[in-house]
């Protein structure tokens, strides 16, 4: 397919489509050239400098990169923390939102009401969200440990424990599985022809068979979308760690983006932070491309 496109178009219809393709994409390209190019180029330039935002940058070549790859224990610590968090979080939130979407894809009475309830947690943000979870996960009087105590289980120290802190953050993520992600899955589920489900019914298949053979393949483009997106988002986790734990305890929640923030705005090493940022981009890009390669084999596109 690709080869056909890149060769000179002889078919006038294809030529027209190509031209229109560029036209439709133009808004983004113009936007990028006007709003995106300068900041991106400058941030790359800064990554090659010592720079504190208010004074002139000092060009130091690859100094920042050399330092963070060879000399900086926090770089590796933060990569580990971020990877761990991503690997645990992404499958859980995708599965959670998907199951929830299947559940609310029923036209029962009052479904609007239920969907809204599921959605509400995802719009709580910032200080309020952090205060709420600091309270919920309080080892002595928080909701979670109180419930565990009913069953006689001594609850962990959650955010205050170097071992449980990252899981605590994953737990926080799970609270918002009814949010936009679920909505997208729901929209995708709406597009599955009911006739396909009827086929499974006739064959005698139950709920699980429908899920496995119809639902998942039919919305696999959207599942794929969210896997890629969630990896990108998880790699950039920041706010919760900044407000609640400040990277602790014992630097167990020192995520990559938090470390970057410290370097950029606390230490005024904007050059170093930019190097961190560009390295992150490369890492995420590689991971995403890998996902695309796997995705080509696994994802089913109706439109193709």
């Amino acid at each position, binding site marked *: 397919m690709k080869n056909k496109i890149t060769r000179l178009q002889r078919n006038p219809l294809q030529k027209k489509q190509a031209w229109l393709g560029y036209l439709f994409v133009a808004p983004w390209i113009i936007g990028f050239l006007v709003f995106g190019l300068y900041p991106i180029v400058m941030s790359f330039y800064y990554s090659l400098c010592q720079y504190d935002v*208010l004074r002139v940058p000092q060009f130091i070549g690859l100094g920042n990169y050399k330092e963070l790859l060879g000399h900086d224990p926090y770089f590796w610590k933060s990569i580990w923390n971020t990877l761990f968090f991503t690997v645990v979080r992404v499958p859980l939130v995708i599965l959670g939102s998907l199951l929830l979407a299947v559940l609310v894809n029923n036209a029962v009475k009052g479904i609007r009401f239920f969907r809204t309830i599921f959605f509400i947690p995802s719009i709580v943000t910032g200080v309020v969200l952090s205060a709420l979870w600091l309270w919920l996960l309080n080892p002595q*009087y928080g909701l979670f440990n109180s419930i565990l105590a009913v069953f006689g289980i001594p609850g962990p120290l959650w955010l*205050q424990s170097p071992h449980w802190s990252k899981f605590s953050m994953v737990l926080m993520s799970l609270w918002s599985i009814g949010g936009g992600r679920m909505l997208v899955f729901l929209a995708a589920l709406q597009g599955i022809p009911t006739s396909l489900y009827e086929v499974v019914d006739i064959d005698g298949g139950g709920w699980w068979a429908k899920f496995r053979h119809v639902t998942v393949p039919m919305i696999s483009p959207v599942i794929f979308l969210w896997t890629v997106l969630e990896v990108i988002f998880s790699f950039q986790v920041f706010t919760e760690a900044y407000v*609640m734990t400040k990277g*602790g*305890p014992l630097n167990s929640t020192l995520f990559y983006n938090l470390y970057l923030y410290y370097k950029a705005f*606390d230490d005024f*090493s904007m050059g170093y932070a930019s190097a961190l940022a560009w390295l992150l981009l490369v890492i995420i890009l590689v991971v995403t491309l890998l996902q695309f390669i796997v995705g080509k084999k696994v994802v089913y596109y109706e439109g193709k």
Partner: protein
Amino acid sequence: MKMKAGKTLKILTTVFLAIAAVLILFYPRGRAHQTRQRTISFWSCTGQKEEVPFIVMAFNAAQDSIRVLSNAIPWQEQEKKVLTAILSDNPPDAVSQFIPIVKWASRMALMPLDKFIERDQFDTTAIFPALWQEMRWQGHLFGIPVSSASYAFYYNKKLFRQAGLDPERPPQTWDEVIEYNQKLTRYDKAGNIIQMGFFPFYRSSLVASQNSPATATIIAWEFGASFLSADGKTVTLINPAMVKATQWIVDFLKPYPINKIEAFAAGFGYGDQQAFAAEKVAMMILPNIFPDYLRIHAPHVEYGIALTPTMPGHPIASSTGSWWIAIPRGSKDPEAAWEFIKYAASKQTQLDAYIAMDQNLFPANRTATNDPLFLQDGKMQIFVTQLEHAHSSTIVPMAHDVFWREFYTAQEQIVYGNQSIEQALGTAQTIIQYELNKALSYDEYVRTRMNFFDEK
């Protein structure tokens, strides 16, 4: 029909244009007529009970030639806001913050105030000496401290009584603190710690530190430690005093398994769950604003205030920082801003502010704090004495945040037993020194390119 509509439209348009013309011609040009009165903009941070800071209202009321317009910026994002304001070439004329002023001064964001101070013979001795430390950069002063925080030793009288201790006799040495702690520590049936006499905080997040400064630095200061060489180039985090101070903490925590300590500390929170307010920790070093806090959240707590315990033969020490007011470069009326600053730091204003405001910080002007009116409340003398012996918490100005991050990381490693004191402090010192060197060399480079003190 159509003709009528056209005519109506014409009439309406004419009337509209007429009204617009009248408005434009006679719109009150208030601003143009205010050339006699100068206006300056002032930014302070949210979190004070008063909408408009007292000093602004007082200044505006006290004179006619300058009017201060006050704007509150979100406390959590104050740095970004000021940073972008300076970048936009449209900064406020005066700004007040609590962060180390060196962060802005060393990046040429503020105007040096020396010439104002000299010209008006501003009495620098009127301000507590410890507060000046962070106002200085390369021999110039960049801000005037207006408020501060003074820390003293709070203790819970009721818990003292329960443990058989004399509620009027708080500990005077750190060894006594350990003694008292042994009597004040209590456990529940499951063996968990539910109360302690004292807690040496070793983490830095707001909840984890509970507004109490790091015990290790206070003890180290009492020993006379200095963490930075006089020329500001060498970090001396590992020094005998610091090692001794940290050893004290290790000895203090030795009888308790770390997981029990962790579990105990994990129960601290905000509001009435603050460790002292919740009566979980009987003795704590807390700021002068704490009585107001207790009044709101835990009025039933019976407490006393005393000077910080000391190491035998050594003076007390305390930690402090200040709310300062400075003039960003690019300010359109620095003279007016300076008048405002002088007024805010003056003895009378400081006294008035302290009396008038409901919850307030500590005045930076020691002539105000030595006034009998201020000392009416007997507790205040303690805070004044503490502030006289205080050290600025801006220990390594050019690597401030790195210093404290590494400091707390080292503390955690030591408390958890992961590293020895020398190891942990050594690692921290290496990292801080490295960052300091980078910052200093960058600073040198910039000076060859940008002219700092010859401007304005």
